[in-house]
């Protein structure tokens, strides 16, 4: 059933897509049907795979770096009230800046290559990871902390044995959000200025009116992003086995 449902959903989506195309009679340069797009995926597979490689590298690098930086920031804030007082407002205010508006600046500073896209992904991944991990650690059961105090615990041990594991379910939901938005960061970076990657390939095809290729690139991107999300989701569910599951159905 668990395998069947997504397949039915995907099939339903394809049928709906085809129905819209057939019934509305939109020309293929506005919305090509699923079949031509499927054909385009097959025909242009080598080019798509090459650009996908670039985009995936940006996504994974951004995800890794953003997660490491977000985790470190949360740890620093929980361990030092001083840093918390200075860092927390900066973090909150930074969220008021539309990060995508920074894309041109990142390209200006970091160049046309991969660095600016990774930077973009890091910027949007950092906050969900840092804030979810930090608030997860802050919500540690005060009774557990009192128990640790009575036991004469060392500070770092309380952090590693109690506080961090307590926060891992919250951290996991932050990481899920980060995984979902990471491809957006990479692709937006590519749109602003690049010479490789699926975002670049889409713009390139768009300029040449190769709408089927554009949709093919979009399809590949969506499929890979979904795959990555489910992979991370399953992995986290296995590793952080004590997170509450299916409370409300």
């Amino acid at each position, binding site marked *: 059933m668990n395998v069947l449902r997504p397949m039915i959903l995907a099939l339903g989506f394809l049928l709906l897509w085809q129905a819209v195309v057939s019934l509305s009679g939109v020309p293929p340069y506005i919305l090509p049907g699923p079949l031509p797009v499927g054909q385009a995926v097959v025909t242009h597979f080598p080019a798509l795979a090459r650009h996908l490689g670039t985009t995936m590298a940006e996504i994974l690098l951004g995800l890794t770096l953003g997660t490491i930086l977000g985790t470190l920031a949360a740890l620093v804030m929980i361990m030092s009230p001083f840093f918390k007082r200075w860092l927390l407002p900066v973090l909150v205010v930074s969220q008021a800046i539309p990060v995508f508006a920074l894309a041109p600046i990142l390209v200006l500073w970091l160049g046309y290559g991969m660095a600016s896209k990774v930077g973009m992904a890091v910027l949007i991944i950092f906050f969900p990871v840092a804030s979810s991990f930090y608030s997860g650690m802050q919500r540690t059961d005060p009774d557990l902390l009192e*128990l640790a105090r009575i036991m004469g615990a060392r500070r770092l041990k*309380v952090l590693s044995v109690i506080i961090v594991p307590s926060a891992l379910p919250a951290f996991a939901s932050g990481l899920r959000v980060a995984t979902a938005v990471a491809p957006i960061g990479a692709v937006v970076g590519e749109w602003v200025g690049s010479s490789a990657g699926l975002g670049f390939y889409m713009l390139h095809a768009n300029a040449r009116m190769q709408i089927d290729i554009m949709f093919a690139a979009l399809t590949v991107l969506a499929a890979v992003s979904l795959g990555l999300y489910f992979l991370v989701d399953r992995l986290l569910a296995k590793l952080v*086995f004590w997170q509450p599951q299916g409370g409300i159905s």
Partner: protein
Amino acid sequence: MDSFAASRSRVVDMRDAPGITLDRIHLNYADQPLFADFSLHIPGGQTTCILGPSGCGKSTLLRLLAGSPHLACAGEVRFASRPDACGQVSWMSQNDLLLPWLNLLDNVLLGARLRGELRERDRDKALSLVREAGLSGCEGKLPAALSGGMRQRVALLRTLMEERPVILMDEPFSALDALTRLRLQNLAARLTQGATVVLVTHDPLEALRLGHRVVVLGGTPARVFETIDPSGPPPRDPGDPGVTAHYAGLLARLMSREGE
């Protein structure tokens, strides 16, 4: 069997278990005076059960004994052996507070691990306690796989592992079904023998079964309504004269006070 006996006598050395004196305690909670000029002596090496309706401040009293830094109070808490609670008390609460990411044995060993002084000796001792509590074979299980009674037994073992002369228990068995509760009370009474135990409860039967002394608390600000020393050593049978002689009267007085 020898190792069991050895481990049991090592849990607490009776000579170390100090009496505790609360001297003219003043404490406000949410702008209400919870304690005003409150004094109480808790004898060393015995179990004192503090009985009272919920909200009468008995849990706060326990936190006070534990030296909680979050309580602003005037007055003095004196331990007969040393001036304060530091390193002398261990704590067991109604919520088992087991860490869901650690298995049974690691939960029992939590204190040593948190102090960064986990030794092979601790592991052996934990294993023999686990055996004594009838939990052999479950050492590697996670708390999620244990029943409520088993979890609370693990919490009891974690408390005993600390080898502290003073054991503070905050309604430790109130979330359990009646039979499991009786069994756990017996186990706790056996394993905490010789320690200064302060057990807070709202169950008169539990207090009369386990307490060398039962202190009935009530009112705002809280005061001691009466002190009972039931006859015979705990744990007393529910049908024991030491229990039956006081049970009905105690229950009636608690109920009349709730209605006040």
